[in-house]
């Protein structure tokens, strides 16, 4: 009696590919595929850990520009750390760390920490949500992207996820996020969450999301328990994560005690265990919140103590212990990581012993293979700051991302620019040279830009520069960090030049001008009267 085949064959056959192709199977050509194979072979086993510092970390009280102390004490005396309490870094007397950061001081002095100064983006946005979305999606300030930079990267290396995964060569999650908050960073094209969210790899119900209220002894509780068990057992990657967690271990004695409630350290402990336990997962994502320090950032009587000090203690201890653990576990060659926060905080402090939403801030990259230097210059603080003064950007955060992708994951130039970062960003020297820096990266160039004269500016001034010649740009930003105009953009002959700048109708105030030449930037302040 069963006579017809149309519907039966059509329905499941259409259903599966059509729904699933919506998840974004991206075909790739054979040429690109070979490139990928080569790259994967080179980058095999490398792991990168992203630490989100949610809320906007006060960069000026984290990496302290001690050469700016007198202006800093004018601007933010009530939260400023006494200079004699700051922690020194080898090789510089101008830049020091918050006293809570002894762990990271050790890392830097042991050549396992890279500090990148003044990382931000043009036309900064001061909303947590928007700025976090910009950082996570790696968009321009005025651009709307709904996927994340790590998601786009993983989609390049693991096309077709999740439909055809796990595979023999990638049996493990592409990314593991400790915690249940899905990060936009890890959302791939077509809205696929590329990460597995894990709260506790050993706990029964801890996957997917951490919400397990007790089930009552009612029909509802009975069915809830049934569904939970099926849900739990059905998690594709459950067993690999549990197995890796069981096989891994922690060897560092530097992890803080449980009663310190250092969530970041606990999360990084899991990460170390999963890496050691054999997961091939290349990306881990962890985070802590609380950096939105509008009030009581410091104690009334002691600016080295208080909420921000506690946060930095947690970050510093956790990072130090994690790097130490990787060393002892024998995985340090292939593990690195970075911190980021959606913005720094305002130059001026407020009257509540806190700081308000700001712009650029320092960023840390850690691990045995980082270039253990301070990249960039101390921010320049004005002598008479206004409430709106912000630390101007020296490096775009997307330069950091592009450097991680190209230097650490060996992603080729073209894919980085076209498919992940969606535009070209110059690399920074974040990893050691022996990690195959891309040929485009060059070190010192003898680039110079002097103070404009006259300063303050009434109607025009000159900006003296010295370059090796080639494409340069000089942009003017206001105190909020918003781009105001291009002072110069074009090709420059080598040697010294004076660039003319006309004030035109610009209002009185503090401004910044920044010269960009390839991957390098120099920033100075300008006052307009």
């Amino acid at each position: 009696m069963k006579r017809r085949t149309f519907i039966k064959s059509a329905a499941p056959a259409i259903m599966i590919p059509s729904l699933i192709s919506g998840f974004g199977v991206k075909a790739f050509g054979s040429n690109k595929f070979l490139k990928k194979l080569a790259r994967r072979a080179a980058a095999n086993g490398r792991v990168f850990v992203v630490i989100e510092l949610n809320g906007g970390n006060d960069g000026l009280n984290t990496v302290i520009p001690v050469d700016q102390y007198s202006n800093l004490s004018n601007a933010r005396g009530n939260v400023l750390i006494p200079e004699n309490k700051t922690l020194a870094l080898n090789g510089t007397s101008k830049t020091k760390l918050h006293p809570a950061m002894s762990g990271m001081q050790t890392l830097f002095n042991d050549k396992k920490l890279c500090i990148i100064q003044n990382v931000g983006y043009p036309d900064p946005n001061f909303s947590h949500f928007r700025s976090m979305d910009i950082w996570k999606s790696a968009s321009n300030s005025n651009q709307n992207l709904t996927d994340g930079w790590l998601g786009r990267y993983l989609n390049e290396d693991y096309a077709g996820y999740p439909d055809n995964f796990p595979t023999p060569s990638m049996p493990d999650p592409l990314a593991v996020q400790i915690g249940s908050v899905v990060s936009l960073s890890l959302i791939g094209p077509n809205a696929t969450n590329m990460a597995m969210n894990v709260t506790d790899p050993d706990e029964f119900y801890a996957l997917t999301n951490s919400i397990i209220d007790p089930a009552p002894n009612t029909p509802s509780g009975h069915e809830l328990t049934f569904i939970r068990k099926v849900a739990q057992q059905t998690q594709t990657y459950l067993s690999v994560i549990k197995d890796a967690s069981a096989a891994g271990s922690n060897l560092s004695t530097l992890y803080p005690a449980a009663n310190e409630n250092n969530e970041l350290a606990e999360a990084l402990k899991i990460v170390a265990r999963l890496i050691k336990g054999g997961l091939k997962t290349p990306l881990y994502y962890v985070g802590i919140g609380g950096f939105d320090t509008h009030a009581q950032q410091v104690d009334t009587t002691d600016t080295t103590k208080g909420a921000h000090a506690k946060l930095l203690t947690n970050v510093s201890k956790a990072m130090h212990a994690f790097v130490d653990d990787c060393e002892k576990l024998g995985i340090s060659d292939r593990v690195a990581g970075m911190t980021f926060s959606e913005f720094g905080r305002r130059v001026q402090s407020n009257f509540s012993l806190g700081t308000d939403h700001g712009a650029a801030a320092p960023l840390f990259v850690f691990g045995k293979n980082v270039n253990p230097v301070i990249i960039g210059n101390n921010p320049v603080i004005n002598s008479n700051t206004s409430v709106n003064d912000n630390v101007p950007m020296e490096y775009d955060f997307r330069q950091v991302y592009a450097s991680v992708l190209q230097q650490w994951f060996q992603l080729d130039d073209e894919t980085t620019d076209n498919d992940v970062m969606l535009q070209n960003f110059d690399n920074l020297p974040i990893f050691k040279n022996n990690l195959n820096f891309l040929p485009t990266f060059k070190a010192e160039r003898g680039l110079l830009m002097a103070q404009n004269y006259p300063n303050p500016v009434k109607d025009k001034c000159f900006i003296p520069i010295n370059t090796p010649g080639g494409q340069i740009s000089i942009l003017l930003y206001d105190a909020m960090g918003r781009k105001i105009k291009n002072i110069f953009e074009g090709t420059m002959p080598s040697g010294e030049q004076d660039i003319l700048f006309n004030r035109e109708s610009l209002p009185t105030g503090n401004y910044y001008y920044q010269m960009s030449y390839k991957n390098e930037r120099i920033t100075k302040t300008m006052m307009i009267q």
Partner: protein
Amino acid sequence: MGNNAKLTTKKHQAIDISGKISEYDITKDIIFNKFANTKLPDHLDEPQSGIAKHTGVFAKEEAQHLLNRTLFGHDKALLDTTKSKTLDQAVNDLLNTNPAITNFPVYWNERDPNYGATWHDKPYDPNLDNMQSSSLIYWLSGNMIFHDNTILEKMVFFWHNHFATENDVVGTGIDHFNHFKLLRDNAMGNFKDFVYKITIDPAMLKYLNGIYNTKNAPDENYARELMELFTLGKDPASQYTENDVKAAARILTGWKINATSRQSNFVPNAHDVLNKQFSSFFGNSSITGKSGASGANETQELINLIFTKSDIIAQFMVRKLYRYFVYYNITADIETNVIIPLANDFKTNWEIKPLLENLFKSAHFYDSLNRGCYIKTPFDLYGSINKACKTIHPVSTVFRTYKSYELAYFFGTTMSLQMAEPPSVAGWPAFYQTPKFHEIWINSDTFPKRVSYCVYLLFSGYPVQTEKVIIDCISLAEQFGNDAADPNKLVAGICDLMLGADISITSKNTIKNGSLLTGVSLDSYWTSAWNDFQADKTNTIKKNTVNIRIQLLLKFIFELPEFQLM
């Protein structure tokens, strides 16, 4: 078939953990078989309430429970209007159904020369069966999802499960359409009349071989299911015999289908005119054989005879409705306090609507132990996100409209509820297969789909030419009016609307922090983001800022096991 039948679901393609595509077979599902009931739960708190009218409050929770169980999804607005009604008003409005069809199924494929035209009212053409059948199954699925806020579609589906027919057996689109129209027209009517009409319904005559049942070659298929599945059931009290089945089959000989009118007609010379003797279970009755056209009258006599076993039929049907609307576990107390009293009323006139009214107005229905324990069928699941999440459907053309219907059909199909293709004449096992019952909907193949397809409609959407079926997060939140600006109220409101079991404040805060606040500590950040967007609604960046956070919130919701319950 029946309760003791082997556990079956219609086979569908499944993707296993290693990525292999195979036919899903629930009997080989280790995870499902490990955790699903191996016996009916007897250790739980049991409701003691009966069918006396509910006299407690009728407020948001009661309204939510009533809508959950009687509709394939509802939105916030309907919840708000329902909770403001009295219990009587609310139930009466839900039961006030209108079966008239205003959107007859049409040829939906743009390349079809008859694109957009109806076919139920055209002369039968076997060459068009396939297109008519696909039109029918999408239309039926669409009707479930685009219901009119009355119980009608839920009842149509109940009867489809009860008087089950498979489209690929019935074959003819027009016959199957007429069958579903019959289900629709009688869904709230008189059950005894309904059974008679089903008995001579052309689709049923084909599905259970009635047209091949003749005096020379009697076919017992329909006669058996008429007793076992459609009326008496297979309880210990239901003691009809094999000879009763044979006698009934002989009574039903002679029914055919008119090839042009597609109506059933009685062909006297195929009818067995001898007398038919029944067992002591039917009081040793006999039905006198009749020749000529009056042979058809024996059919009504058979129905009358079967319906003399009114207690058995009424209880069987009430249990089935109870399991469909309330919960599958009928304890001894429920049998005494609910099933038997309802059955006693039902058997007096076989009217379906008053039976439903008694049930939905009863104290038992609103018993807190009966809430949140019902595992959503795939249509309940899709319906719940569709209505509550304000899913956008392209309806600009017939083709696009049917693509939306098709999605509903696909959604059900891959989660083992294929519209118009029940696994057998017994219907879907989740409604009868003891002791697992509703748990059958959730297994290692369907659970990941239940989550990921909802998430898919949340983020990517189902492409339909230049449009999409996609959840509208902004409209979802805007249903909550000013409360949407308060992240606590928005999370709580969405939980109330979408979860079968409440979750703790701590859990709601976890959701809030992880989604609307994306980690920052102050509620006011969400409030200002929402208000900024409301003040500047065409700003795509402001819109995206709130949209992505509501998406994260819904993703949390969809992943909660509580979301699978209602």
